[in-house]
């Protein structure tokens, strides 16, 4: 049979068009969804998946094994009967790619029942506003665990997410300045309470040949230095100082903000942070303090595990003291406003909200605090509903500070974009080295804030 050329051409064209169309359709299926396309029956959410039984999926951070371990204990021991019908299905993802993974899953409406919150709090708010997340303000009441959270921890989560309680504080950390009691006593220094006293203490230590501070400023590890800048702003400008930057009513390049970075840069120029903060990473900074080579160390209470480990801590846990970030003369803030964070909170998917999520939320609310503290020494933002004996002294000290703190503040980059956060943390080492001025540092970060 002889086929005409034009018929063959048309067929080939049709075939090619069909192939292109099928590829396009397949790709379109991977695209974004309409967040408002399904009903709204979950607390703050958009849909419901009320299936009896079934897996309870958890997506965590590869770097954090504590949460998965606590959840496993809850599933196999503490709540074994209640959760028997909802087996835990764990998976994890690297922290530096986690936000992209969450966006992808949300776009496919495939968020797991429980997951770590994104690194960028702004993305958490976006997910909530898109109807993807459960609002724990109502969900905890719904499952009969309304009082599960410590009010201070709940308040930290709310301030992080524009007033929405969309994260479970699986950690609750306070931050402050840890000091080597022996080094201070040997040099006749009382724990400083004001910025000026701190500067004087640094000078005394430095003159005696003791490195005053241990800080990390290598690569992106500079966050502990920017915490000093942020806390100075909380003490000088006031606890709302950085909210004003976030809402655009103030700029980091305003003189009162530049003064904070200049104060750190001045300490850097004086050599109080050691010879080369840009060469020091997190582990080295911790090791420097725990081997008695520096007097002060700014860190969060998550480091208690290191402090309470005698193999790491060569200066002895009973030789470590804690002081809050000092007052700044004439400032609007106060040293009892403790810097606090909730680690990487846990969030629940609204579209997966059903019996499995409810049963698990009830169990987590009632037991997470005690299991995390007992098995891992982690202080969480959940109330501890049973007596945990033999807590190390430093852990009790931190619990005391948490209980006594009238209010808390966040941290320097808490409300910054990811780009501004990176700029801030990667330039912090230069600030602590004294080779970057406060004005240049703040200008670089402000440029990314727009």
């Amino acid at each position, binding site marked *: 049979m002889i086929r005409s050329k034009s018929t063959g051409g048309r067929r080939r064209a049709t075939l090619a068009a069909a192939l292109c169309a099928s590829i396009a359709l397949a790709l379109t299926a991977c695209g*974004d969804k309409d967040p408002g396309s399904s009903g709204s029956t979950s607390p703050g959410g958009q849909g419901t998946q009320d299936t009896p039984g079934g897996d309870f999926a958890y997506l965590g951070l590869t770097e954090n094994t504590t949460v998965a371990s606590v959840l496993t204990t809850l599933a196999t021991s503490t709540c074994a009967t209640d959760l028997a019908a909802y087996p835990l299905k764990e998976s994890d993802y690297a922290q530096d790619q986690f936000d992209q993974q969450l966006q992808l899953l*949300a776009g496919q409406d495939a968020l797991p029942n429980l997951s770590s919150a994104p690194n960028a709090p702004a993305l958490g708010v976006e997910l909530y506003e898109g109807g993807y997340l459960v609002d724990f303000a109502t969900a905890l009441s719904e499952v009969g665990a309304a009082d599960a959270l410590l009010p201070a921890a709940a308040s930290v989560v709310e301030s992080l997410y524009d007033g929405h309680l969309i994260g479970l504080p699986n950690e609750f950390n306070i931050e402050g300045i840890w000091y080597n009691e022996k080094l201070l006593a040997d040099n006749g220094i009382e724990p400083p309470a004001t910025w000026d006293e701190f500067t004087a203490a640094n000078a005394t230590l430095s003159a005696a040949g003791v490195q005053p501070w241990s800080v990390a400023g290598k690569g992106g590890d500079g966050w502990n230095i920017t915490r000093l800048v942020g806390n100075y702003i909380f003490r000088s400008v006031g606890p709302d100082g950085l909210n004003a930057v976030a809402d655009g009513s103030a700029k980091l390049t305003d003189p009162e903000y530049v003064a904070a970075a200049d104060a750190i840069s001045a300490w850097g120029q004086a050599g109080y942070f050691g010879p*080369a903060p840009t060469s020091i990473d997190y582990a080295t900074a911790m090791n420097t303090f725990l081997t008695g080579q520096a007097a002060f160390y700014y860190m969060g209470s998550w480091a208690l595990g290191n402090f309470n480990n005698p193999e790491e801590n060569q200066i002895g846990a009973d030789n470590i003291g804690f002081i809050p970030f000092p007052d700044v003369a004439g400032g609007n803030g106060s040293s009892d406003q403790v810097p606090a964070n909730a680690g990487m909170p846990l969030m629940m998917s609204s579209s997966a909200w059903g019996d499995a999520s409810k049963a698990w939320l009830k169990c987590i609310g009632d037991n997470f605090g005690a299991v995390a503290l007992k098995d891992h020494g982690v202080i969480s933002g959940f109330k501890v509903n049973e007596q945990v004996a033999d807590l190390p002294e430093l852990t009790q000290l931190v619990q005391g500070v948490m209980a006594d703190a009238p209010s808390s503040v966040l941290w320097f980059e808490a409300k910054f974009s990811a780009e501004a956060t990176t700029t801030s943390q990667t330039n912090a*080492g230069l600030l602590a*080295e004294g080779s970057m001025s406060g004005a240049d540092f703040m200008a670089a970060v402000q440029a990314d804030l727009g």
Partner: protein
Amino acid sequence: MKQVLGDRKTIAVLLAPALVTYSVVMLAPMLWSLGYTLFAGNPVRGFTWSGLDNLTKLFTDPKARQAIAFTIKYALTVTTGQVLVGYLLALLFVFFLKRASGVIRTLTFFPVVLPTVAVSLLFEKLFEIAPTSGPVNSLITALGGQQVNWFGAGSTAFAVIAIMDIWRSMGFYAVLLYAGLVDISEDVIESARLDGAGGWRLARHIVLPMSWPVLISALIFSINGTLKVFDSIYALTAGGPGNQTTR
């Protein structure tokens, strides 16, 4: 075979599976991603048309400009260094060490087979200042100089990066150029010498022109590698201090 490959249908049947797979797995996502440059948003809130805004931002972003400038500076410096040092080593092998060059050739080639991250860690320790002084700073101190915080400023960090990457690759270019140099006929060299050429004149008028093709190949290899480098710099400085060695 000619008959089989002369049939268009056969060619289509043979090519189609690989072509379709490549198109679906590689080309389509690439084009799809390229399309996203014209949109703003994310999978959560959806995408909206933004025209050329993203591209405008890319070309006006000072950080992007800084990274491109650093990339060009790095590529030019390291390519020049790699090929020049490699060429000098090759000349050393051919004209001075001659048959005894085997051991030296092996030693200079050795860094090429080392993992990039291991080399970066080695140089990090060599040039360290804190928490302990590395060998380089110890040597400077022993000679009565002031220790240098090599990774505390963009200029010195760049110097360490350049030294590291030239050292790491010079053996490869030395061997490549050696292959070109040994190809130059002994007779030509000998007759040039008889005509009175020696030293610089021999190199300038005989060796260099005759090894030019392999030299160009080495330059192309080198610029191709240096423009794409990421791992060694990331492992050594992570783009720091600040973003001064970001590319």
